[in-house]
């Protein structure tokens, strides 16, 4: 028998992230956002797949479902259906969400399930040591893509808008205050929220560095109308010398949970057998 500790179980003490990794800032900001949004930690449910980003749930105080690579969304969907009073937040990587889990990404958006999806987008596969991810830029050279990436990168935000997502935002680990605002807004949104977080990977991505992101991210102009879908699509596709950050698109639609008659009497997990 392992020695039984008397104290409640909480976060792990040590992270497996490199010094200077964007994940540290994201973690710190998430903690601040949870506090600012006034969430009850006991109802905080962090879900992730596999990758360096996906380890985040272990490093804060929350319920954790750290499932399979690419499968955070369906697991989170199942959790939300079983207990829709949980505040379900996914924190996972770009490979996890847009690569291995791409099909789930398309369909979770259609459902508008009330899950907040925070994607640590470092444009690379970190945990497996530096292969290209679906958001790696053309020409990005790795030990696998030795002549550089030849497939065009996905545009997750544009995809989400085309799919009628109800909350589509971008921020970055290099602008923590802005990131916190976006996290709080996503948490407060009813329905599925996508927050793509540009994140420097100091070890495997020598192209999209802290400097690189800092020079490019630019907040949306005052008066920007996130309800304008055509404008949102145009904005989401902008990438280059200027990368827009902020709430790019927002719409209202019934959530998946709201449309399930079986959930009308309260969370299934809590009303079971009653």
């Amino acid at each position, binding site marked *: *028998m*392992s020695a*039984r*500790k*008397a*104290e*409640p*179980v*909480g976060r*792990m003490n040590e992270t497996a992230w490199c010094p200077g990794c964007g994940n540290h800032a994201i973690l710190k900001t998430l903690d601040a956002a949870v506090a600012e949004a006034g969430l009850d930690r*006991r*109802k905080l*449910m962090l*879900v992730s797949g*596999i990758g360096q980003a996906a*380890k985040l749930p*272990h490093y804060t*105080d*929350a*319920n*954790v*479902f*750290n*499932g*399979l690579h690419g*499968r955070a*969304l*369906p*697991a*989170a*969907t*199942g*959790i*939300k*259906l*079983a*207990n829709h*009073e*949980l505040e379900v937040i996914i924190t996972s990587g770009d490979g996890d969400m847009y690569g291995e889990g791409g*099909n*789930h990404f*398309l*369909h979770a958006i259609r459902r508008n399930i009330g899950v907040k999806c925070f994607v640590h987008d470092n444009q690379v596969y970190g945990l497996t040591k530096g292969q290209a991810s679906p958001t790696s830029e053309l020409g990005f050279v790795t030990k696998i893509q030795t002549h550089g990436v030849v497939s065009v990168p996905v545009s997750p935000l544009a995809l989400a808008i085309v799919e009628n997502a109800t909350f589509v935002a971008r921020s970055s680990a290099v602008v923590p205050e802005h990131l916190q605002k976006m996290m709080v807004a996503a948490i407060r949104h009813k329905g599925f929220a996508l927050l793509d977080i540009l994140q420097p990977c100091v070890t495997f991505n020598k192209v999209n560095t802290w400097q690189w992101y800092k020079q490019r991210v630019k907040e949306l102009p005052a008066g920007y109308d996130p309800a304008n879908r055509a404008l949102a699509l145009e904005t989401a596709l902008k990438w280059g010398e200027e990368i827009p950050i902020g709430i790019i698109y927002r719409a209202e639609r019934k959530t998946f949970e709201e449309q*399930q*008659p*079986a*959930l009308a*009497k309260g*969370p*299934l*997990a*809590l009303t*079971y*057998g009653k």
Partner: protein
Amino acid sequence: MDTNIRICGEAGQGVQTTGDLLTHALAAAGLHVCATQGYMSRIRGGVNSFDVRIGDAEVLGARVPAELLVVFTREALDNCRSSVAEGGLVLFDGQADDGVIALEMAKAAAAAGGSALMANAVAAGAVYALLGLDLGSLRAALSKQFAKKDESVARTNIACAEKGAELVAARRGAVKCPKPGQPFGAVVSGSETVGLAAAVAGVKVVSSYPMTPSTGVFTWLAGAADRYGIVVEQAEDEIAAINMVCGATYAGVPAMTTTSGGGFALMAEGLSLAGMCELPAVILLSQRPAPATGLPTRTGQEDLLFAAHAGHGEFPRAIFAPGSLAQAYDLTRRAFETAHRWQTPAMILIDQFLADLQRNVAPMDETLRPIDRGLLDVPPADYRRYAVTKNGVSPRAIPGAGPFVITDSDEHTADGHLTEDLAVRVEQQDKRLRKCKGMLAEFLLPEFYPAPAAEVLACWGSTWGPCREAVDLLRAAGRDVCMLHFGQVWPIDGRRVKPMVAGRKVTMVEGNATAQLGSVLKGAGALGRFKAILRYDGLPFTGPEIAERAAGRVKS
């Protein structure tokens, strides 16, 4: 005695409608009915068949010769004529011939004031007359079928049935019919039974991707969702389906997915996740012939070894394989109970034959009786999800109520946090695998029918009915033979099975090409040498077929 009526025609011609109608009507007439189906993987065309076998005692499966063949097309006639018993009759929507009674069904329907669609009622009426049966139960069945429509619909259908009977009146009673008794029970299918048992057990989230022959259970649950308070979701793929089930069970509700071989193959990683995170995921696996897409609408028992070994790594699981409809009800519930008691995945293995099989049986309890989820009432403040215990089962709490519930597909500590501490790894793996011992102690012993004998026909799952019939036939011919049916096929407690078969001549009767249960029994040390009667052409065994093959094979 029993009589077999076979209905054949193209998909979309009403083979199924006619078959369903006769099944319900003949059951209401007081006969024992067993309906089985064989269909092609298409929406129109081809040749589909629907067998309605009726008896004055229980009928457990199909048999080949039909005393009466009902065919809608020339192609179906050519295709199915060889299945007519000697002296049997054919009812054909075409030209009369030797042993063939012509009945222009659509025309007759029109004459009775009905549409071409009501040809099915005409056919059923004619079948009733040929069997020499009173039309009362058929009229009642039609009234019931169209109860929700305008009253004229039932009335016209009944007129069509009467027209059909009238047109073959000259041959009334030409087909021998078993003597009806008191009407009893209700007609249910295998799919319906499994769905009902899951709903009654308290399943709350069902997430699946359609795949024949599992879709019947999925569809039944969707239809019952509002009544039982279930969320039924068509997932984007089977990977999503199993991961949703994992999420839902983690959060505290019984959940299940339904699939067939190809879909289950996609679920392998998720199954392993349930093993690692100790989640009571329940999977209904309805088998069809494979590899790959195989024969999508046919039957087989080819996935036992796959179900037993799917998923990377080593973790406990239980697999149940019901034979009868009553057992399908009981074992579906048992799968949920086992999964929750041991916090590990459980599977229910059926196949196209059992999924589509319909019989009138004693009514099944439809009242919600939720299983015990095995949750802590009030988790202590220092709660740990994967605390190491003697029997391997850790106290289970659900997230949201108190202490954090932390789970990880990585190897984890008792806290649930990922770890690469190799000693902890061994401790946790030992803990998980310790559950195997307790699960083995709960092993559902196989059952003899009618009693142990010198020769044993051993089978599992849906082969129960045909095998039992074969044993009856062989015993009537003086053979000292019995059946041994396995309702649980994994894990097998070899030490308890061994004495049951010791000293007997064992023949495995399985719907596959390699005697998979035979090899499992061998591996469990329960069985040495055995013979085998195998079938893997996509059709189910029949009792007479097994008896005939056993007579050649088991003779000593």
